[in-house]
């Protein structure tokens, strides 16, 4: 754990007040967090748990009632920190009268990027998010998934060191979700730090290294995903398909060692994985009906 701390909150508290200064909601209560360089950190929690508030405080869109929010060691309200940040809001809040090229060019100009760099970066990002075919269309004509993609492209326009993603897979179809998760992992592999918040637990589980679970503005759990999800009183052995005789033998061995066999059978895959496989197969062989897709032994429920 020697990696540099990129995001840090110290006793971060946010209270929403009304016009007369009366307390309406305590959205965040004394949050202490550290996000280190090169990790994917997930903020989890139900609606109203303080996830988005935390992100907005880190971006300087809200001011803390007390405590501190630091990004790259600077106060979150310091505008210069934004040069190293990319932000994908929950909804892609972009100017709908611009097209994809204009949008990326505009945000590139906000980073003071020279024209040639902007052009190259715009072309690369449009290619990356797969919107080359619609780059001249105004964003108001885009579907929600397309808007999320261009939103992600704008977040990456400055090749940021830290990405703040607010519900990154919201509004995306399963393929878009898969692509988004792959992209997040690829960005992590490039050394970028990613802080995301989501209430889609499967997505978080798939990509995050560490998570923090918030509820009613309070930090309830914090740690590595694999460690937090480990079921310590159950042993799982995964093998290739075995004969009935072999299975009987294994049961006897378990009983002899005072153990209890809870379940024996073939594992199931996730619907997401099945869907993605079918689409991949369909794209590989267009026009042919996909039958009996075999999903590999990576199923989550193998016992």
């Amino acid at each position, binding site marked *: 754990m020697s990696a540099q701390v990129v995001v840090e909150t110290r006793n971060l508290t946010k209270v*929403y007040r009304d016009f007369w200064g009366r307390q309406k909601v305590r959205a965040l209560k004394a949050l202490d967090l550290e996000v280190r360089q090169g990790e994917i950190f997930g903020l989890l929690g139900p609606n109203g748990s303080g996830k988005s508030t935390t992100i*907005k405080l880190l*971006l*300087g*869109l*809200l*001011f803390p009632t007390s405590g501190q929010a630091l990004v790259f060691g600077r106060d979150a309200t310091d*505008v*210069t920190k*934004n*040069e190293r*940040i990319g*932000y994908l*809001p929950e*909804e*892609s*809040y*972009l*100017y709908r*009268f*611009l097209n994809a090229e*204009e949008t990326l060019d*505009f*945000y590139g*100009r*906000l*980073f*003071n990027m020279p024209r040639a760099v902007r052009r190259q970066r715009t072309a690369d990002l449009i290619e990356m998010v797969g919107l080359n075919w619609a780059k001249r269309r105004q964003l108001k004509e885009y579907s929600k998934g397309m808007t999320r993609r261009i939103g992600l492209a*704008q977040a990456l326009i*400055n090749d940021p060191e830290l990405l703040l993603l607010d519900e990154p897979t919201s509004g995306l179809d399963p393929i878009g979700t898969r692509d988004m998760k792959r992209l997040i992992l690829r960005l992590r592999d490039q050394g970028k730090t990613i802080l995301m918040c989501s209430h889609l637990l499967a997505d978080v589980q798939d990509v995050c290294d560490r998570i923090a679970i918030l509820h009613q503005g309070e930090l309830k759990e914090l740690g590595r995903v694999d460690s937090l999800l480990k079921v310590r009183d159950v042993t799982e052995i995964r093998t290739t398909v075995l004969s009935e005789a072999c299975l009987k033998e294994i049961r006897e061995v378990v009983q002899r060692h005072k153990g209890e066999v809870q379940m024996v059978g073939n594992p199931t895959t996730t619907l997401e994985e099945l869907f993605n496989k079918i689409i991949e197969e369909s794209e590989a062989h267009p026009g042919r009906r996909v039958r009996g897709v075999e999903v590999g032994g990576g199923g989550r429920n193998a016992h």
Partner: protein
Amino acid sequence: MPIESYDFQTFAEWFPGAFAYWAAVMGCLLVGGLITGFFVSVLRSGPMRAVEVVGRAVRDLVLDMTLLSPRRILALAWVAVKEAVRRRVLVVFALFLVLMLFAGWFINTASDHPERVCIGRLVFPAMWVLTFLLGLFLSSMSLPLDIKNRTLHTVVTKPVRQSEIVLGRILGFAAVGTLLLAAMGVIGWLFTIRTLSHTHTLTAGQLKEETTPGSQTSLLKGKTSAASGHQHAVTIDASGEAVVEMKQGHTHDLYIEGEGDDATYTLEGPKDQLVARVPIYGKLHFLDRAGNEAEKGVNTGDEWTYRSFIEGAGRMAAIWEFKGITQRAFPESEFPESIPLDLTIEVFRTHKGDVSKAVAGGLWLRNPDTGLKVEAQVFGAKKFSRDVRPIPRSIEVFKKDAKGKPVKDANGRPVRETYDLFRDLVTPDGRVEVWLQCLEGGQYFGMARADAYFHARDASFVLNFVKGLLGIWMQMALVIGFGVMLSTFLSAPVALLATVFVIVGGIFRDFIVDLAAGKTYGGGPWESAIRLFTQQNQIVELEPGLRTSAALTFDTIAKPALWMISRVLPAFGNFEFDDYVSYGYAVDGDLLLRCAFQLIGFLLPLTVAGYFFLKNREVAR
């Protein structure tokens, strides 16, 4: 056209005082803001933290106002332009176009000065209203809608300073307004030319030969055909030189081909109608009834503030001190006989007599160095007529002795002597005094500083028209500045209303100043309200009592507030040049420069205030 004393100041005369005043107001606002911020921080977080917060605010202000990126500002301005276009601002232009297409039906071209009606009552006011509305709606609605739609979230999470957002908006909307105003200007110009353009016909049959009594020569006299509700009298002498009467503020060039009944007469388009006179104004002071110098004349009750009056047949005089009356300004090649003095006089009669008869007045020229004073001419003045009084380069007068009696020669004939205008009456550095006296007892002449000027040359009318547009543009920029600033902390409808308040307050700023100074009739706002609801006139004293005492107390409290409000409201009237354009006076370069600096003087603190409010606003709430 009334010209206030403010308009006579040169930029060099105006700037030091204006800058000191501006700096004082800005200093007060800045110090007031810091003190308020400090106390708010003390209440929120205690004194130690308050010092830190205020210190950081000052540091951020300096950094954010100096480390600006032109690329970012232009990008934000570009988006503002795109947004404006998306909001169908071109409708404004279409509205103007429709107005110009049909306005021609309602313009009275037969009026005394159709150019004043066309430019001053239609084209410029229409452009003014449309650009004001454009600036008002664009500037006050845009930022709140961006915050509501959360598009601003994505922008402020980039390395954009709040000052750049405010400046970008102002520049973007100003660019949209500039384009629209330029387009409207072109249409307005074409409309003006087309509306005023006319010609007359003249045939040999319309001319009659007249012989001047006691002269061998004969003249051809007649009238042109009627067009635009008027005709011109034409006089052609034996040499073929024609004089076309000045009517409705213009004349026409007349070309004659052939002779006698075969002659054809061609009249060109209007001449001297769309002009931009460059006046040389003097400083005005008076001599009172005792002949002593005075700042003002007498008040006849006819006009109270702008003009002062001098009594006839006495020692009272109006004296204009002119500078810059040099041979270079009035070269002999262009002004061979005389130099033109334009004079407008208000005549106030205490006994009517024949009202159509002019009241006699006299003009004298005086050399301020030598004290030589020479009568230039005696004339008849009619109420409010602008007359050109040519001042001869060579003035011949009867010689008078020390007692003022005419000197006669050996034959008993009065001796004449001749004075050269530039040698004897104007100082080498171009100073001369023009004295005006009313010569009829019981009658009064009224005059203001701008009522007499030497007319040296005409500037380009097109350029003057553009300067008039610049005046509208500057007012629009002010509206945009206020709109954007107010929208940084108010919601769209409230920002819109607040900007309307600034516009209305700015238009009536002089009245608010008078109200704060207690110079208005009818008292302050509360007293006036009582008079309004109880239908009492402005002069009668209110009935003593609790209600009156309360109203007077509230008015006393309101006065300092009104004074402060009047200090920060822009005087939109200072930027209005449409009267200059329509009355045919060139907009002075110094006046433009003063207005430009005033505009900067407002936009700078508005940007800082907008930055400050946006910086301290939680955009995501």
